[in-house]
């Protein structure tokens, strides 16, 4: 399957899972909102230019916003993590040229520790910005801190489960192939 087609299907799947499964769960506590959709942005290929990365993330966030009737709330954090993503990959990539030999960020292509750091940092950034936007409109500082921590925790567990369930085999590519 071509990378483009795969990502289009993922786009739809992540939105549907987020809207019709994770957002339908009655919340255990007001601090806990299970977010998984932004994993789509973390899984986008290495080779995308930063321009298209941000554009796709913006559209992705906006699509979710239309489902939740809150235009802009998720689009803004999505663009932020898309902007930061290339910097982070540059710092974290361990092997020389791994971003050319593999298609997209994963445990296989980056290694356990760098990939975990990558996910944790971007999750924190995403939730921090998202809750900050909510906090601007209402809520207290306790709400801000509590929700960022709780939501990040839940998201990380969800991401771990997803990575284990849908293990992505990354093919090693060389120039000759």
């Amino acid at each position, binding site marked *: 399957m071509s990378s483009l087609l795969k990502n289009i299907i993922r786009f739809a799947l992540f939105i549907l899972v987020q809207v019709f499964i994770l957002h339908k769960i009655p919340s255990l506590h*007001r601090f806990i909102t299970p977010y998984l959709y932004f994993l789509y942005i973390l899984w986008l290929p290495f080779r995308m230019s930063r321009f298209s990365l941000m554009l796709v993330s913006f559209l992705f*966030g*906006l699509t979710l916003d239309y*489902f939740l*009737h809150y*235009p802009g709330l998720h689009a*803004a954090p999505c663009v932020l993590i898309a902007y930061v993503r290339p910097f982070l990959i540059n710092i974290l990539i361990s092997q020389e040229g791994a971003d050319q030999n593999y298609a997209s960020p994963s445990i296989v292509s980056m290694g356990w520790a760098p990939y975990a750091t990558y996910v944790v940092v971007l999750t924190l950034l995403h939730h921090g910005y998202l809750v900050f*936007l909510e906090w601007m409109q209402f*809520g207290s500082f306790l709400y801000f801190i509590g929700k960022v921590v709780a939501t990040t925790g839940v998201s990380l567990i969800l991401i771990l489960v997803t990575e284990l369930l849908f293990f992505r085999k990354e093919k090693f590519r060389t120039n000759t192939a």
Partner: protein
Amino acid sequence: MRNVFLFIRRYFNFLFFLVLQILALTFLFRYNKFHEAAFNGVAGEVVGKINEKYSNVEYYFKLKKTNEALVNENIHLRSLLKSNYEASDTTQKIVVDSIRIDSILKFQRYLYYDARVVGSFVSAQTNYLDIHRGVNQGIRKDMGVVGPQGIVGRVVEASDNYAVIMSVLSRQFKVKAKLKKTGENGTIEWDGVSPLYIQMRDIPKSAPIKKGDSVLTSELSSIYPPNILVGTIDGLVIDNSSNFYTIRLKTATNFLNVQYVYVIDDLQKAERIKLEESIKKEHE
């Protein structure tokens, strides 16, 4: 000029990032103005269609509870029938002469539309419901929405065949309500903590309050007919620095499984708004 172009080229990604951020934040903070103008109508239709597909499946699993709610509502309405009551004094006869039976429509103030809920959330800080009835079927902005058990929310936008309701479980939602027993008016709000409870403010401490008392919509409310159940009193938040109670209410409507709602059209609304505006003009 050349330097400007060089600058733009050098920092293109950062500038594009800023543009997208500003765009997103404009959507967020000018929500009300934006969604009247831009492609929210189309988005509303598409989202509504997808939501409906999902709700067709979900609908089946909640049939039992929906049925119960509708039967309860029927019992409540039946118990109000005139034939259930009789005057204690049989020598007197009650004659109703203020309503002409033939042309009852002339005196009707509120019109009810039924609508099926196709999408709903309770997990955010501002919660919305989608219903399958839109502008083509008579829905307009700012109509009140009630369910079989009590009030649900207010229409905030309507596309051709679908409409979006802001539910009572929203930080921005405020409505006037009164205590059933004594009639004191207060404001209903939601603090965002639990979807099962809402808050009622500005009830003077002189009012007698008991757990389990009903709270109804008030005559002061501009979108609901009076005397529709809002919730029942569950507890008090004691605040010694204020002369007013903040009451915790259990919502009448169970937002986790609301499937059918009634949208209320106030037929005298245009008249009232015209009057209010003419007063505003006079006093300016």
